[in-house]
């Protein structure tokens, strides 16, 4: 069934607000090591009683579904070392699929405080999720533009997609640190499909992923 725009918009907004709040509690700058779960991430206090309002729980901040390590791609710099790509979560809330991921750069030949932008590292994150069971592919929702349109429309989508980091030229990663990322995509119309998750062109694909159902 094709979904109408208005429910998609409303539910997407609610889901994205939750994602945004979760993202605010996570380390998104790459300046720190593994992010620390919020104080309410575990324990009975986070459960809440009947009728109580509880804060969102970032229960996947340190989760690792899978990870792959490859030589650092060739970017505008020869950064060297390796990057480890971590898939943290693939989750469906209403009509929105959220991908949480992280990227760690390790370059033993460089100083601990050296920084590289994603552009330097040759990485331009535009998460692509392919449902290989039902033969559909999904790119980040965008405020303007159209991934299926012409070059200008695709550029607009790239600039306004609901994802972080958004600007790979300015986003920097410090040596030995981890960058946290997320993206909001349309949820597959069919549940239970086998998903391939590509975070950025040129990085390895996570295959055979199953999305978990959120709220």
């Amino acid at each position, binding site marked *: 069934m094709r979904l109408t725009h208005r429910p998609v*918009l409303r539910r997407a*907004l609610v889901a994205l*607000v939750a994602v945004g*709040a979760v993202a605010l509690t996570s380390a998104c700058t790459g300046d720190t090591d593994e992010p620390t779960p919020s104080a309410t991430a575990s324990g009975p206090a986070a459960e809440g009683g009947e009728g109580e309002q509880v*804060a*969102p729980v970032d229960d996947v901040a340190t989760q690792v579904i899978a990870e792959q390590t490859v030589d650092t791609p060739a970017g505008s710099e020869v950064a060297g070392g390796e990057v480890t790509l971590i898939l943290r979560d693939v989750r469906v809330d209403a009509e929105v699929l959220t991908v949480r991921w992280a990227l760690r750069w390790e370059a033993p030949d460089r100083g601990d405080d050296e920084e590289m932008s994603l552009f330097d590292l040759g990485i331009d994150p535009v998460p692509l999720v392919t449902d290989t069971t039902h*033969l559909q592919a*999904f790119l980040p929702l965008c405020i303007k533009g159209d991934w299926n349109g012409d070059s200008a429309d695709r550029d607009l*989508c790239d600039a306004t997609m609901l994802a972080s980091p958004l600007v790979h030229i300015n986003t920097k990663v410090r040596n030995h640190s981890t960058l946290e990322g997320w993206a909001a995509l349309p949820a597959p119309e069919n549940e239970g499909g086998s998903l391939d998750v590509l975070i950025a062109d040129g990085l390895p694909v996570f295959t055979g992923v199953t999305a978990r159902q959120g709220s």
Partner: protein
Amino acid sequence: MTGRAPRRRRLAIALVAAAPLVVGLPGASPAAATATPGEPPWAELARTPVTPDMIERATLRLTGGPLHLVGGPLALVREKSVRELARESQGVTTLTSDLLFGFDSADLAPGASAAIGEIAAALPQGAAVAVDGHTDGLGGDAVNMPLSQARAQAVADALAAARPDLVLTVTGHGSANPVAEEQSGGHDDPSGRALNRRVEVRVTG
């Protein structure tokens, strides 16, 4: 328990999460007014009276109703972020190669034959059909010409299996006929390359 209470509870959670985004983060005090240029004018914002209209526009309602977020609603259109197996335009059915084949492969993915069979079912009886394979611009003709031919042949085979009455002409074009630019602003554009990786099916007679 009905499904209504949990839904309201979830929405309430989302609203709690939204509060810092709507009313500003706790650290957004007037003291930050001396921050570096480019930051929001905290001091000015702090002096701005909050009016009922501002609250009205920034409030999400549990009971639904239109959202009036400041700046207008986001124009999220699902279809603009979905790549389907097949799309039709001007009598041409364009199949997305990335959904039919693995990287550098001409073997149909599981489920692809059935999907192509559905497309075949809509073609006229005994029609002449052109099946044209296209690649992106990476790899050169030595790779792309045989790959595009093999992929077009794989689609043609699936069409023929479903509809033996069709008269099929199969051609591989390599990267000679792109439908999307593969560079944008001097940078590589993977989304454009993906659009160029395709097999086109058209009735010619």
